[in-house]
């Protein structure tokens, strides 16, 4: 699967889609492949703040549990409720399945993240 060039990526395998001062956050195709069948996504509620580099939730597959790390800081404005009943969409459409929508504290901080080419290099070497 191709890594969309309109997304930014973290070394922890999250992606972020920024438009203006808001952004959507999800996990990458590489991450869902490593996890296998996702059965449960534990996310914060709207109104909570998340901090770049810190844990904001967890994701469980049949075989493992893994923490989710915030690519950028901000306030959670929406949570994808469909993931409660259909967590498997993380597997089937990883880059189209957002988990959180966030109002960014500092949209300019995106420069510290990886672009799609850098991310592809990262997963090639791992």
């Amino acid at each position, binding site marked *: 699967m191709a890594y969309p060039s309109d997304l930014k990526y973290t070394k922890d395998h999250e992606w972020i889609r920024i438009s203006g001062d808001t952004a959507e956050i999800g996990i990458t195709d590489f991450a869902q492949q490593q996890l*296998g*069948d996702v*059965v449960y996504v534990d996310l914060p509620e709207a109104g909570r703040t998340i901090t770049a580099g810190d844990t904001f939730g*967890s994701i*469980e597959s*049949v*075989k493992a*549990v893994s923490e989710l790390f915030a690519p950028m800081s901000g306030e959670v404005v929406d949570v994808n409720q469909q993931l409660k009943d259909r967590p498997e969409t993380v597997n089937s459409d990883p880059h189209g399945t957002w988990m959180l929508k966030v109002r960014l504290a500092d949209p300019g901080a995106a420069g510290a993240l990886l672009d799609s080419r850098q991310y592809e290099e990262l997963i090639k070497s791992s």
Partner: protein
Amino acid sequence: MVPFAGWDMPVEYSGITNEHMAVRTRAGVFDVSHMGEIEIAGKNAAAAVQQILCNDASGLQVGQAQYTGLLTPDGTFLDDMLVYRMAPSHFMLVANASNAAKDFAWINEQVKAVGDAAAVDTSSRYALIAIQGPAAREVLQPLTGVDLDDLKYYWFGHGEVAAARATISRTGYTGEDGFEVFVPPNMADAVWQALLQSGRSADVVPCGLGARDTLRLEAAMRLYGNDIDETTTPLEADLGWIVGWKKDAFIGRDRLVDQKQKGVSRKLVGFEMLDRGIARHGYPIMHGDQRAGVVTSGTQTPFLKKAIGMAYVPVHMAAHGSEIDIDVRGRLSKARVVALPFYKRT
């Protein structure tokens, strides 16, 4: 691929859920050649088996297999295994890969003590391919002259499978009907390919360690190293039915008789999560702020579609319907004790 007891084994081929569902609804093929084989033969072989293994094998016919335990003198599990009666004085034990060397060293010593019998580690002589699921019989039958309808559950026969010399056993680790086929290692690939080819129209899939674990857990089959080990007895593991109480002597008997009289203080139970999340191996069972027990196995089951597991709990918490608290990574989550197995084929 993951390293497993000295073998490189695939966790999954097409995904744990897909493989699990295939076995419950059609069939799946597993390469379980890592399992260890130990054979005991000689004039006193039957006596040695009766002394070394906890189940009563006296009624075991030639061609029949039995689930049993290899116990320490303390009555705890060195391993769990199947024993096959190959001939009146010839038995084959099929042991967990991670324990096979330890088992053989122990068994060899005990067989020598009994005398007039010998134990041989024959693990390298067998590959083991399993086909499991409701379609297993119709997929395997075209490949062999052995009439599979004549093989009852936990019986085995000899013949050929896809031109390989084979022992076919109607056993498995999934809770489904199915077969385990012992073949020479150099024929393993041919048998594997033949089964997948024969199963193509039934959409049979290859299955890895991941589905093997979720399937066996739904069927509440114990996994050595998780649910049973050298600290737990058959009574604590709720496996009293594999103890040959009528036998005068076997290794571990005194401890088990004592434990049966006094009653166990903890017991392996099944649970279903009431709160969201999966309670996994090693998570504590809490009673107030005290640690009262431990989860031994846990997963989200693809077929039953709920989070289940097994745990050791104090007997006062073991009744079906009891609610228990599990520490899921720092968060107390509720679960309910339920009857085992979680899944039973109809």
